[in-house]
């Protein structure tokens, strides 16, 4: 049952989110953590429409993208805490960086919006190699402002590159609301300028996001070019954990998620099974965190390794 698989992914992501939240609240954190609470459903929904060998450029809200793509929570938490056993071995670029070439997870830029042009290049490789792979690029409504989107979209559309752009519109570009950032209510409208489909979808409904993504992926794989999907979602926490959001009037400083994707999915899953998956997810997250916290940091000798081949 597909909904059951999707529920499993969303509850696994949620369990990690909440555990990281409580851990940081209790112990603090060196670095940036950008919570993805409330956005897990769209991340899991979109990724579930990809093939295992499809490429992924994730955004910086949480670990959901990569967990849904098949990376292990131990690896991801090890990256979050800068451990040697993380996929980038403590060398990431300022927010959580992780990579998994075998699963097509190609990383992200420390400067958001760089994935637009890099992702287009991956699409060119797929065209040249005829490897039938699609590249999914996640980004936020704030990042949608980058000129790199225009530069990539313009040529990707003309060259019909196999790309899917997934905008997580949570309504806030750090402290500035979307109404002050966009002349139109929907970012998806911008697709019209590039002659590609622009699709608005309810980001709290994982099944709806999966369906929209599956259609875009099929179009990309058929050589018909990119699609821009805008998933309307919510930002529950601050831009980073510790951001008090004094600029925001609608904020509730808690962990409640209105229109919770987990609750929406739960309606399609037998309660007993959902309870079991919730418990498994919590146990998996706890065990992963315990394992990672006991891990050593990187060996000092690696600091200059990996600069050149």
């Amino acid at each position, binding site marked *: 049952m597909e909904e059951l698989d999707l529920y499993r992914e969303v509850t696994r992501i949620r369990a990690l989110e909440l555990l990281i939240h409580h851990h940081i609240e209790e112990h603090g954190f060196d670095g940036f953590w950008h919570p993805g609470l409330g956005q897990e459903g769209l991340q899991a929904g979109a990724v579930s429409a990809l093939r295992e060998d499809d490429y992924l450029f994730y955004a910086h809200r949480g670990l959901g993208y990569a967990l849904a793509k098949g990376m292990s929570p131990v690896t991801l938490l090890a990256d979050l805490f800068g451990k040697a056993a993380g996929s980038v*071995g403590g060398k990431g670029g300022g927010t959580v960086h992780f990579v998994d070439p075998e699963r097509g997870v190609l990383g992200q830029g420390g400067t958001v919006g760089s994935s637009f042009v*890099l992702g287009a*290049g991956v699409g060119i490789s797929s065209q040249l190699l005829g490897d039938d792979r699609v590249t999914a690029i996640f980004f936020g409504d704030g990042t949608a402002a980058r000129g790199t989107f225009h530069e990539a979209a313009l040529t990707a559309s003309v060259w019909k590159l196999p790309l899917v752009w997934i905008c997580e519109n949570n309504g806030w570009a750090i402290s500035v609301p979307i109404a002050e950032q966009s002349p139109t209510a929907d970012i998806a409208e911008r697709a019209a300028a590039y002659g590609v489909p622009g699709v608005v979808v309810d980001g709290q409904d994982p099944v709806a996001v999966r369906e929209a993504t599956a259609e875009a992926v099929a179009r990309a794989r058929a050589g018909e070019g990119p699609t821009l999907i805008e998933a309307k979602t919510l930002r529950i926490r601050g831009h980073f954990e510790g951001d008090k959001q004094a600029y925001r009037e609608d904020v509730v400083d808690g962990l409640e998620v209105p229109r919770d994707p987990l609750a929406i999915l739960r309606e399609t899953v037998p309660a007993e099974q959902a309870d079991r998956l919730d418990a498994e997810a919590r146990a998996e997250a706890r065990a992963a965190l315990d394992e990672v916290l006991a891990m050593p940091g990187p060996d000092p000798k690696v600091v200059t390794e990996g600069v050149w081949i």
Partner: protein
Amino acid sequence: MSSAAPAPTELGYGRALNAALAEEMERDERVWMLGQDVGRMGGVFGVTRGLHERFGAARVRDTTLNETFIVGAAVGAALSGTIPVAELQFADFALIAGDEVFHKMAKWRYMHGARLSVPMVLRLPSGVLGGVGAEHSQSLEVLGMHFPGLKVALPATPADAKGLLKTAIRDPNPVLFFEHKGLYRSKGPVSDDPELLVPFGEAAMRREGADLTLVATGLMVGRALAVAETLAADGIGVEVIDPRTLVPLDMETIVASVEKTGRALVVHEAVRTAGAGAEIAARIGESCFFSLEAPVWRLGALDTSIPQSAELEQLVIPSAAEIEAAARELVAL
């Protein structure tokens, strides 16, 4: 060179680059190109002429006027199994794509735990051309030395243009390849052996001499050799070394020379302040202190922008006369 190698033929620097591109695209079908006007037009300086017809529009791609796309897409393609050779029309435009060049190209491998590589070449027409002004004339190669992860090549002869570009394409690291615009039409012997590569990190000893080590790059190599010829007539032996690549930098050859001559002059077209010459001079100072008979001197462009007037332009960069005067003074110290 083995006796079986074909005899070198006389070729222009631009044609030598074209031959390198054609040979590497022929050898490895993962190699492809993108840039503004590199296709039908063959590049604003004609370097890619004929390649669009020969290899097709999928492998020789004309882009829009978008430097961040040109460099960023090349990085993405390099991450995913192909080997892009990107051309920017002028090296100066690398600054438009600063994030892509100095962050993505240079750092993607490191910040992803060396799990990925970025095998690509960014071709950058560089230097003064006579009348093209402040934003189309700069020599920016030192920037590549300041962002670990990049390699930097700057050929001064047609043979090196071909051999270094072939090495750059085969190198698994990202390479900034500075071609001097003023040298595109210069001619010299170039081998048509498709396996004759010029290795990175091996300086070329252009001329031997006992009295002064003259380290020169790009356009300045020719001026340095002319000065060495003039001084030889007066019994002054000038050893001319062309590093050819700044990353990696062959300090061994430079240090061995300075230990012999006891004097060093470093000359480049780039701005003298904080240029590559400052780094080379500092390293000579660190390594050769007890062999030096005089301070290490540098010549480079004045602390000014490049003016449009071709006459004023030449006042900004080191002339043969200035190099000669500095060399004579340094030898007399």
